[in-house]
């Protein structure tokens, strides 16, 4: 099967859906002739022109508010925000408006608004270009929060986002954008709320989020050679969150570790731990543990940057500690 990068797969999803549905348009800084800061729209401006590939001034609040109104009036905006750090300026629009309008209108208005762009610590991007910030979107009712970790999932989940009528926060980790995976030519969709079992195992369950999936898988390869069998789960969407799959795995393994680059307090690992404790307590043979990035603004200098992201040594240690409990 052919291989595509994460970015190319997501772009293919966008291109297919734009060809199919004339009400889809993309908004963002440089999404026109330039083809997007991360090549998210390369080649599309030539096909669809400025009304559907809309370059904007630097007004994240403004264009997200505008797209809110557009989504309420029959079109399907895709906001290409470059870095999630930038849309913090639009949190008022997102939380007070986007997330609430379907509810406040008793379902008479829809909100088919997709926001997509990069997250994550990578390449000395420093503190204003390294955020992830998904816990706050998970905390608030009204968002679908999608964190694909490979090209195959990126395409299938993006297609689902573009067909739905709900606001979707589609987050693309910078460290994954150029990674390739097999992507079939045939159309496919991946539903929201279905975790992937990235690796089967029996002795412990590790839920890995975003860029941590690959790193955890590598660590588990190393452990396999020692006869240690770990199950790795990639939730793929954080809202909805596929707790049943995690519970099932913990039922089998009795042990759970959550590995997440982002901050621990009130993070996604806390939510998973709380739910598994409440619903799977009797399955637990050891305390659930979390391994998170260091709770600090992201520093620039490479040795500092490396020090805040969970690394393979720490992952291995955390798994060994968990097994030793």
């Amino acid at each position, binding site marked *: 099967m052919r291989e595509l990068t994460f970015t190319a797969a997501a772009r293919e999803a966008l291109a297919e859906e734009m060809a199919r549905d*004339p*009400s889809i*348009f993309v908004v963002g800084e440089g999404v026109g002739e330039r083809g997007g800061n991360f090549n998210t729209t390369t080649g599309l401006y030539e096909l669809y022109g400025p*009304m*559907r590939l*809309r370059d*904007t*001034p630097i*007004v994240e*609040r*403004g*264009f*997200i*508010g*505008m*797209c*809110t*109104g*557009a*989504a*309420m*009036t*029959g*079109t399907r*905006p895709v906001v290409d925000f470059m870095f999630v750090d930038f849309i913090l300026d639009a949190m*008022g*629009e997102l939380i*007070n*408006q986007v997330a609430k*309008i*379907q*509810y*406040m*209108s*008793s*379902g*008479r*208005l*829809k*909100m088919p608004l997709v926001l997509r762009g990069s997250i994550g610590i990578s390449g000395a991007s420093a503190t204003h270009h390294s955020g992830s910030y998904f816990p706050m979107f998970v905390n608030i*009712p*009204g968002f*679908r929060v999608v964190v694909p970790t490979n090209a195959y999932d990126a395409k299938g989940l993006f297609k689902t986002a573009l067909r*739905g*009528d*709900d606001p979707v926060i589609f987050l693309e980790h910078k460290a994954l954008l150029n990674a390739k995976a097999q992507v079939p030519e045939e159309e496919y969709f991946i539903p929201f709320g279905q975790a992937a079992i990235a690796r089967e195992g029996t002795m412990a369950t590790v839920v890995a989020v975003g860029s941590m999936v690959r790193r955890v898988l590598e660590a588990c390869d190393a452990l396999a050679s020692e006869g240690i069998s770990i199950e790795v789960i990639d939730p793929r969407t954080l809202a909805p969150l596929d707790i049943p799959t995690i519970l099932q795995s913990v039922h089998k393994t009795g042990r759970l570790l959550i590995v997440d680059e982002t901050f621990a307090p009130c993070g996604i690992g806390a939510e998973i731990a709380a739910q598994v404790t409440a619903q799977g307590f009797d399955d637990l043979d050891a305390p659930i543990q979390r391994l998170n990035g260091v709770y600090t603004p992201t520093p620039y200098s490479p040795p500092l940057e490396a020090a805040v992201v969970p690394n393979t040594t720490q992952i291995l240690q955390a798994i060994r500690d968990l097994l030793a409990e």
Partner: protein
Amino acid sequence: MNLTQAEHLALYRQMLEIRRTEEQLAKAHQAGLIPGACHTYIGQEAIATGVCANLTAQDAVFSTHRGHGHALAKGVPPRQVMAELFGRVTGCSRGRGGSMHLFSPEVGMMGTSGIVGPCILQATGAGYSSRLMNTGAVGVAFFGDGASSNGAFHEGLNLAAIWDLPVIFVFENNMYATEVAFSYATRNTDMAERARTYGINAYSVDGNDVLAVHQAAHEGVQRARAGQGPTLLDCKTYRTRAHSEGMPSLGTYRTQEELDAWKARDPITTYRALLVSEGIAAESDFDAIDAEVGALIDESFEFAKNSPYPDPATVAEHIFSS
């Protein structure tokens, strides 16, 4: 632009409907029938009325905390507005919204907001949809002087301007944002001038003169539908009641003289007098309307008061589309 007698009377009737609804709501608030906030539109009726007379149900109105008048003028029945403020399931937002969250997409009332600012951006988005899908629809934002200092104003007006979007920005300058005077909030209270610096067509309008508002809105809407881009209406007006029911109507910020002077310029009585003096309508025409509207409001009030509350079991419905 010449209006027929029927059109003139319809403007009068619409303003009166707003006034009577608001008066009823103010009383209901005192009587404890409204559990939350209530910002009345009394004194500003000419603006919503003059603008919405130029709109169809396809056109999308976005409004703010002082939105009863906009909802009514856009075609939401008084009973639905009252029931909403009473928290009943028959309200236009099924009781979920109250005074500051009126939704009725069926008639193009796309929502009022308890947050000042967003309506400006959302109306711009409705303009974008219209241009993209070629529907001819217009997006309309109603907002106060207080909103004009907000970043949403700057960003929204600029986007509408550079993309020639069919949007009408209706700036209702009632001189105060809660108790903060507009003359304190900015060194430049002339929003028509400000709008022109964005490249936006603008009119300065007497917001208590329904015909002036109607005329300016007509031109703006025609331009918008013709692809000539956005228009801002800078409407000077005054709210003659308190910012919000239960607050003092003068407060620390207004004088009795100022209030009285504006009451003397009441948009409804002055319009009625004008129509009579110009021979367009007779007193008896108005009496009939007054009676009809009075009956409608009474009936709406009874309807709202006797409507059931929403079922708590439905409380988590419609967060998502499915």
